[in-house]
């Protein structure tokens, strides 16, 4: 092993580790002898079993956040463990809302840099070299930290395939945080779940995304209908999210979700670098766009040059008629 110890911020949803968490743990196991995790919540002690299956030998229990947003407390718990215990060689965070907040807070607290948007890691002695997709995934830039530990990485979803290890015993230790004062002032008053039918965007085997080329907002329904016919999830380019056609949670790309479905259908999307970085890893790509020079046609396996708002209804009809 090239590194001694790696910490992972383990995030849970409905008492299950998020897929991104399992990806990070799997990666950590390939680089370090010892993998330890931090988690918050009411019953963190119950998470030891599943984390043990993924090679975690020690779980730091931050405890209930009592309504606080996680960032400040996660960063404080890690900083405290570094000063009272021993620093890890690297710390992995997922590119999630709370992962980014926590990494940013920790970086500023420790005054060490953070490398974000990592899509692959390669060990080089006790250092990790991080790969990033830049210019829409056309180039791969590799970077590393100039100075030693802890090397903080924020890793994009689907960069590693999750794989359980032989079950190991996971010790749980308390990492509760004392009063943080003003930085911890933001409190969650209530949580709202927006109902979405069908598979989740970042887990769906088929994703159909719409862009500006649809022409007008109500035509996004065509994207939703096609996605539903293919048992897939609807997505969107940044352009129509910025224009308010669909919520931010639909966005695929650099600033949105990374998807790697079996089939990705880009409807009226030109393929700006911002979008490509989030979908270029899809197994099969279909593009429908009226501009035959659009960059999306350079990455697609099957493309039709034409007006998406006319082609998609015909496609829906043809699929229904089968």
């Amino acid at each position, binding site marked *: 092993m090239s590194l001694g110890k790696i910490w992972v911020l383990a995030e849970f949803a409905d008492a299950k580790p998020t897929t991104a968490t399992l990806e990070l743990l799997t990666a950590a196991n390939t680089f370090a002898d010892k993998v330890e995790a931090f988690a918050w919540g009411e019953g963190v002690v119950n998470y030891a079993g599943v984390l043990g299956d993924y090679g975690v030998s020690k779980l730091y229990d931050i405890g209930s956040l009592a309504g606080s947003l996680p960032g400040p407390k996660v960063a404080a718990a890690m900083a405290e463990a570094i000063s009272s215990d021993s620093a890890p060689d690297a710390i992995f965070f997922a590119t999630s809302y709370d992962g980014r907040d926590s990494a940013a807070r920790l970086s500023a607290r420790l005054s060490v840099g953070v490398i974000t948007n990592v899509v692959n890691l390669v060990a080089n002695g006790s250092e990790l070299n991080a790969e990033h997709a830049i210019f829409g995934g056309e180039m*791969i830039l590799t970077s590393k930290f100039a100075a030693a530990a802890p090397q903080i990485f924020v890793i994009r979803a689907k960069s590693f395939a999750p794989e359980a290890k032989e079950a190991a015993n996971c010790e749980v230790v308390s990492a509760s945080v004392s009063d943080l004062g003003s930085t911890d002032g933001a409190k969650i008053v209530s949580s709202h*779940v927006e109902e979405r039918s069908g598979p989740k965007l970042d887990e769906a085997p088929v994703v159909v995304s719409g862009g500006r080329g649809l022409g007008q907002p109500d035509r996004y329904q065509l994207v939703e209908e096609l996605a539903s016919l293919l048992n897939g999830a609807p997505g969107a380019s940044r352009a129509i999210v910025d224009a308010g056609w669909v919520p931010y949670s639909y966005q695929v790309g650099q600033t949105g979700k990374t998807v790697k479905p079996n089939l990705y259908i880009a409807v009226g999307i030109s393929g700006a670098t911002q979008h490509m970085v989030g979908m270029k890893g899809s197994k099969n790509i279909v593009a429908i766009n009226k501009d035959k020079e659009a960059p999306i046609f350079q990455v*697609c396996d099957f493309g039709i040059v034409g007006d998406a708002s006319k082609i998609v209804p015909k496609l829906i009809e043809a699929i229904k008629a089968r």
Partner: protein
Amino acid sequence: MNICVCVKQIPDPTVTPSLDPNTSNLVRAGKLVLDDSDTFGVEMALQLVDAAGGGEVTLVSMAPNSEVSGIRTGLAMGAAKGILVSDPELAGSDALSTAKVLAAAIKTTEFDLVITATESTDGYTGTTPVQIAELLGLPSVSFAKKVEIVDGALKVERQTEAGFDEVTSPLPALVTVTAGVVEPRYPSFKGIMSAKSKPVTTLTVADLGLSGQVGGANSGQQVVSVRKAEARQAGTIIEDSDDAIGQLVGYLEQLKVI
């Protein structure tokens, strides 16, 4: 209500970007424009100041050169003044360096709230805003899709995986806004004219007392290499026709998705 909005002037995103072959830093030599992502924060700030019935919006930015065209765009939208930290020492800054500079610049002015985008379009590390909050000792709420000031406190709808959380925070605070939080206005002709005479204070790294602490020379990261990614095989591209739909259906059948 005084609000600082962090804005970034970036190379025109419609122009193909390139890297400096020696430093591997993004080339920022051409004309810089206001990052579109920042227009949402500027608009949000203008509306909150309006709703509060007083105060002003200050734009805070940093650049290795003295470029101000992007800041002028924000001033034309209605911001009152700008602060630009401009210093050759800042070339190649990492996110933490950027946060240290912006935090120090923000401290030179009075504020109740700091607004930023969730991330810039060119660098997109997405960590600078919350690093600024930590350096200033402020609470932060990231990924806001709705922002209000109610009874002197910040009230935000924060994007989550499942939907959104309603979050409150005392002021002063920092909030990062997603696109769609508000509809940014286009600068009016009058706005563009008056922006030319609005004050933009230029500060150096030394002015902020950060000499030797920030910039590329003090960045904790190094570029190891840059290489071309594996290109995808070129696919079949056809013009729209009745036959095209048939071929696409055939392709989908072959993939067994229908």
